[in-house]
């Protein structure tokens, strides 16, 4: 997102909006209600697009006392404004502010630095901010600090210094866990997992997951990410069923808007491969979704190859899209699909022929030798892929008559799987429900509440998950 807009909007409007947010933050500190702070942070999405060095400088001069500006060292990044600062500052000269406001300004500065690609500045400033918030230790800062940590990690990633921030993040996670700071905890866990997975340190990521609990109250965007990482770790460790259910959760929790398209594509890519590895074939309609259509083309041909058990087509696709698959970090998983392709091929043959020589199987599946074909078919029989008998002396495979699937326990298992999915869905929806504040009676408060609700809904539609596209590639 390049937000260095050239619009010549009067900074006054932006500053007025910032003042609104500052009021909200103060209200949040005074009333101990975190939802006001949440609203202020959510509102930054609209400010962000209009930020530039001048606006930031003017706003800092108008809204922050001088010593706070000096403490944060904001002058490094802002331009002295040619606007009459005193005129703005005169009507509300502030002598002291709560630290939340300072950190809020720090956050805005980080956004500005990120969007204007001032990465070196961003790295130093974000580490200073992290130090500052750790020194402050205020519960009312929790939501803001989660954001600060996010950009701290992001800047380090851009600077390719991810390995160095790990100790800081781990220490911060420990502190956040002890203080029940759910928001920061969720963000930090995701950042650490991302950090480990970036270096392919799956065993360390797995250990981190095993030793921590993800806070249940975390927002949807954070839990979507967490489930995605979980799914990835489990897929590497061959636990495909668990991985698939995690990825489905991630897809469901991810917001459905164009801003998070990158995340959704990444999850879908992984989910398709994992689903294929479990032996299922993804829905065709999935590949027609407009925002997935283009990204999933290579995956579609892989799916087709697996579905019909065509080994040659599989190898072709793999060779053609190697670079894409490597970039998506799905290459090694796709390599594992090879034996699924063979399995499907054997199943097709077993359905079509009641008796076939091993030599023909070998030719049809393009295997190295008849001996190999024999072992492979024997393994397929043992794994329950097909129901057949081998005759070694005469060198053929004889398929047994198809058993009526309804005489087995298979339908019961499928039934159970579906019911538990529905029940789980229901339970989660119940958990997500919110009830109105029942104790307020007066009409005027009700109106105010409704107004607030409407505002929140508007902001939600506008600025939800604004930072999703800051993540870079998944």
């Amino acid at each position, binding site marked *: 997102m390049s937000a260095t807009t050239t619009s010549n909007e009067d900074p006054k409007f932006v500053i007025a909006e910032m003042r609104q947010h500052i009021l909200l933050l103060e209200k949040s500190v005074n009333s101990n209600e975190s939802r006001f702070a949440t609203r202020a942070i959510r509102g930054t999405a609209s400010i962000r697009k209009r930020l530039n060095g001048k606006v930031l400088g003017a706003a800092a001069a108008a809204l922050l006392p001088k010593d706070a500006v000096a403490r944060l060292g904001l002058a490094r990044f802002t331009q002295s404004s040619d606007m009459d600062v005193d005129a703005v500052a005169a009507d509300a000269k502030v002598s002291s502010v709560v630290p939340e406001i300072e950190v809020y300004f720090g956050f805005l500065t980080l956004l500005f630095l990120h969007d204007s690609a001032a990465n070196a500045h961003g790295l130093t400033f974000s580490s200073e901010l992290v130090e500052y918030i750790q020194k402050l230790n205020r519960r009312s800062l929790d939501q803001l600090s989660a954001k600060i940590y996010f950009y701290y990690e992001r800047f380090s990633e851009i600077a390719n210094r991810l390995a160095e921030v790990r100790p800081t993040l781990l220490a911060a996670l420990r502190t956040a866990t002890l203080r029940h700071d759910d928001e920061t905890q969720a963000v930090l866990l995701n950042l650490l997992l991302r950090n480990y997975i970036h270096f392919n340190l799956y065993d360390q990521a797995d250990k981190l997951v095993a030793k921590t609990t993800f806070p249940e109250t975390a927002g949807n965007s954070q839990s979507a990410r967490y489930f995605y990482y979980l799914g990835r770790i489990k897929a590497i460790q061959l636990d495909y069923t668990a991985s698939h259910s995690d990825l489905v959760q991630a897809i469901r929790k991810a917001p459905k808007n164009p801003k998070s398209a990158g995340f959704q594509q990444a999850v879908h890519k992984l989910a398709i491969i994992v689903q294929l590895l479990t032996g299922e074939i993804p829905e065709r309609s999935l590949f027609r979704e407009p925002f997935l259509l283009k990204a999933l083309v290579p995956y579609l041909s892989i799916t087709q190859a697996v579905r019909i058990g065509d080994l040659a087509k599989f190898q072709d696709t793999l060779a053609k899209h190697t670079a894409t698959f490597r970039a998506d970090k799905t290459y090694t998983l796709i*390599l594992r699909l090879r*034996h699924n392709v063979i399995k499907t091929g054997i199943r097709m043959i077993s359905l079509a022929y009641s008796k076939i020589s091993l030599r023909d199987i070998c030719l049809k599946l393009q295997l190295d030798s008849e001996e190999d074909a024999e072992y492979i078919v024997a393994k397929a*029989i043992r794994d329950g892929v097909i129901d057949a008998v081998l005759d070694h002396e005469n060198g053929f495979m004889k398929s047994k008559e198809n058993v009526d699937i309804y005489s087995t326990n298979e339908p019961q298992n499928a039934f159970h799987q579906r019911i538990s999915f529905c029940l789980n869905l229901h339970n989660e929806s119940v958990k997500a429900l919110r009830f109105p504040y029942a104790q307020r009676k007066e009409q005027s408060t009700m109106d105010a509440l409704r107004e607030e609700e409407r505002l929140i809904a508007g902001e939600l539609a506008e600025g939800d998950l604004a930072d999703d596209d800051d993540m870079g590639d998944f």
Partner: protein
Amino acid sequence: MTRCPTHHHKHHQHLLLLPTLLSRSPPTFTAILTKPSLSSAVALFETLKKDFSAATPDLKKCGQHLSTLKLHLTQLSFLQPTASQKELLLTREILELGAQHAIKSHDIPAFERYISQLKTYYTASTATPLPASQRQYPLLGLNLLRLLAQNRIAEFHTELEQIDPDQLGNLYIKHPISVEQSLMEGSYNRVWNSKSNVPGEEYLFFIDILMGTIRNEIGSCAEKAYERLPISDAQTLLYFKSAKEVTDFAAQRGWTVSGSSIVFVTQQATDAGKLEIPAPKVIRDALSYARELERIGEFIRFRCIVKLTLWFQFNLPSPITLFSRERNT
């Protein structure tokens, strides 16, 4: 350090004598070990390297030297990426030699330990990156094969992810990868053949272990896939050298041998098992459905209560008054 040289000297001698007492290595070797410094470690390592590269190395003696050296290393900055580059390189080489020694003396746990220590040096984010080691990929490939031989497939894949994608075509890495693929497909023939094209003789040690695993795999497949199998064919299928080995293997797995062929009877027993109704599972599932349904019912009741309270709170006509009004009219 210079303040009290005698005391200092004594202290280290005490420490360094410990392994010599334990391992009773020749005194000439420990004579170099008067003071733990980088140069003495280098000297020690050179002796070891010479011993180890002999045509038929005395493995026991080398092992003793290695443990002395490792003790020596702990007094330098062992396993810390902050050490000087020279020291890091030396430690890496010692550990690599240790891993090779462990393979030669068939000590798998020791090999595993060396590899996990080595990984610090292969992936360390030091200030100046170390030059790549020639032995890195041979050793990592061996480690992959070890995981396969021990049937630790999940760990195999975790390790594989850590290898630089550009190195997947590396001769030493490609071998275990193709072995794993053949194993998964069931092309045991190819695993057997891979014995002849191993990238290094150390690989054979693990391939041999792997063959034992594969034999059991083939055995369990054969049980399900064949109704009967002539002993001579079983011999080729299971890669045995004589019919005697086949009958031994058959006895071990509980197969019946009638005449010149093996008859598998396990087929029917499993079929009978399939038809059974899994009662405990059905009961457990049904109970969980009941509990969930109960919860849903409760939730609906709870919603009714909330609705009623809201009704009263906002002074709306309550359902009862509505009802009475209806009666009046």
